[in-house]
């Protein structure tokens, strides 16, 4: 579905190699998590494989099409949701989704069905004919997702999709990722949310300083699931025993401090606090 081989990217006027010799392959029907600290090279890799950034060496194939040699065919099989939810805000939601559908040559009947279905699912029916400029953060993210999926791509790429979203929107997106994969498509997404990745992804890759350091199965591998956080902390060079223990404790236990004892219980029960 997606094959990345020896990908290398150096930004102009920079000595630092942003992505260095990264290779991996995605299978049909899997959800693949892409982890790394800020600046590790996740977004650069995603931008290279979506065609946003040119790269210095290596190859990227989407559904067998090389992104450099056959970019149109490769892009036809892909849907992309950026991390900043940027869309043409002067258009209405419906105009924007139709514009993207036109680019992917989605026939009228099919797009009608999908737009209706997505609008219902994401609860955007009332907003579809309003200008995107008036949408909330979550609504913009949803319209981006609608546009990315309007042609039902075989590969769905999302860059930090849950950032800043409310729990309902997050749940809707997760549900849709699972649904998309169930149809034999592939989802590739970057995230900082280790817990979500652990529960959702079949496989995960961890990048650090532009290198792909580890790639392992999560589905059916309880040991990898259990050790994901520790692996991440060790690979990214941020492992400190005390810090990690704190993190693990936060994940597994209630960490809220005890409230100081006062008379709130009495007032909640309808009793007035004693006057001084």
């Amino acid at each position: 579905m997606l094959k990345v081989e020896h990908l290398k990217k150096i930004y102009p006027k920079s000595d630092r190699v942003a992505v260095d010799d990264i290779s991996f392959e995605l299978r049909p029907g899997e959800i693949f998590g892409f982890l790394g600290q800020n600046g590790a090279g996740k977004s650069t890799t995603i931008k290279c494989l979506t065609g946003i950034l040119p790269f210095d060496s290596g190859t990227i194939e989407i559904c067998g099409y090389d992104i450099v040699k056959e970019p149109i065919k490769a892009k036809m099989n892909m849907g992309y949701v950026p991390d900043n939810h940027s869309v043409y805000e002067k258009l209405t939601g419906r105009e924007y989704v139709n514009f993207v559908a036109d680019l992917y040559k989605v026939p009228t009947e099919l797009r009608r069905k999908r737009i209706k279905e997505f609008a219902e699912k994401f609860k955007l029916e009332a907003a579809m004919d309003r200008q995107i400029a008036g949408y909330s953060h979550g609504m913009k993210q949803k319209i981006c997702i609608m546009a990315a999926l309007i042609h039902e791509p075989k590969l769905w790429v999302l860059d930090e999709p849950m950032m800043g979203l409310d729990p309902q929107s997050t749940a809707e997106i997760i549900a849709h990722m699972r649904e998309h994969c169930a149809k034999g498509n592939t989802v590739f997404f970057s995230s900082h949310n280790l817990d979500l990745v652990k529960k959702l992804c079949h496989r995960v890759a961890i990048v650090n300083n532009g290198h792909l350091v580890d790639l392992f199965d999560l589905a059916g591998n309880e040991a990898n699931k259990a050790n994901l956080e520790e692996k991440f902390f060790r690979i990214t060079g941020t492992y400190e025993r005390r810090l990690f223990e704190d993190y693990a404790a936060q994940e597994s236990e209630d960490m809220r401090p005890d409230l100081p004892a006062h008379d709130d219980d009495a007032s909640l029960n309808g009793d007035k606090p004693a006057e001084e």
Partner: protein
Amino acid sequence: MKGEISFARVKTLFRLDLKSRFGTTHKRGVKYRISQGMNALFFLAIYAVLILGMYFLTNIFVERSKMTLEFLTLISLATIVLASAIATGNIVKNLYQNGDNEMLLRFPVSGKEILLAKSIYCLLHNLVVCVLLMLPFYVTFGAVTKAPVGDYFSYIGVIILSSIVTFAIGNILAVPAVKLINIFKNKFVVVLVLTIILVCGIFVAYLLTLSQILTYLRDSKQDIFSPEMVEKYRAFFGGAYPFKWYAELVSGRRLGTLNAGGLALRFLYIFLMTAALSVAAYFITSRAYYRTILYGVASGKSTVSRKAKDKQMSVTRALLTKEFYLILRSFNYSFEYLAMACAAPIMVFFCNRLAATMGTDTVGGAIMPGITIMVIIIFITVTVSFASTCISREGNCFYMTKVMPVSFRSQVLAKFLLYSVVATISVVLTCLVTGIVYTSDAGEKALSAVDMAAIWGISEILVISLTSLSMAVDIKWPTFNVSGDGELVSANKNVAIMLVVGFFFAIAFGAVVMVTNFLPLKIGDWMVSSRGNLGNIYLMLTLVSLLLLAGSLSALFVNLDKRYNKIMW
């Protein structure tokens, strides 16, 4: 909204506001300082031209027509009306369209404190505007009439009083203005039509005034106003209250129309009027502002609503429609491009008329073809320079152009098609208007059909050339510097580059046609051009234009995919 006002918080809000407008005081580079210096010089140059114009205007009214008090009344009327309009716009922008509800939600401040901080800014802004607007008039007036030093203090006093009254008027007018804006906000076509009418109106009024001033300059012995007109002016300005009070306050005593008591009475009238307007402004603003700020908290932004059909379009049509909507639905873009393109025929006609009148009076009718081609190319350049932000305007959505399954060439071609078609329609209309007038008796047959056909042909080639060159420049140096609403913060350097290139061709082509129509050009035995026979010159200019066309099309389309792919976002 009730509660005590903390002046410390008001001060903090005011400082925060200033910081967000004028940036921090960090040290800037040499490049920044040079550009700031150039901006200041440009501003001063414009200001100097304005003062020169004011000087002649003062001379016309005061020295030649002896209408001193009428002139002062006119100054008061014009500057107070203008300052009130500016104040209204500023208050609308700062109080009612600034998203202050977010400030209210985010910081531990009250609505009263935000209103006070904003009002202080608007008042100071208005004072600066009034000083910049009124001082040159009064100083010029003082210089022309050789006023004593004391009068200059009265000018300052009147300016301060005017700034308060215009601020109060601005506050009162801002409420209906906001309501009007909300009615028309999403009616893009209506706004565009109104903008075109306004642009043409202002431009034509400006040129007609300039024409009168130039006539006066040309023949300073000629009386600019007939005795009947002088009487009409006197009658009108004699009853133009309250503006006459300001005029009398400035120099009523010197002109002998007022005694000390009369002067005090005029001051009292102005004071009472200012106080009444200020009280009204306070009540109106405090009510309307709190309602706006709370409405903003409750309902957020209001935007356009339009039911589109879920129907498949071709890729090219989809790209064209998207580009057109993005321009039409942005006030700035539709003004910069569509309004300019639509207004160009009228602007070119009046500009040409003025230049032709002045030119033919001084050097004869032979100047007309040269002036026409120059003016048309100047307006083409202004319209087409919009294409030099074609990539930059994508802003945060630039990634879309890289991700979509459409070749970069097709995307660029769609934009190129839109810009070329709009500019072509504008040029055809411009040439038609100019041609119909100047090839007929009404235009004294100043241009022949051959002249017009050649001018149209050359202009059309330049439309395509400058459009492709503009786009090539923006592909080379795009700047994705967009504001919150996704629009470019300001015109980038590419626009400036294209204006320089376009103006160069306008001046060069205009000069060649003008000179060769005066001085016959002969190479050996070959008579290249003579008066009224510019066929060969037009042919040469067409060839030069075709060379430019070939160069600019190559600059845009050769290796386009490679260059587009290199654009970093």
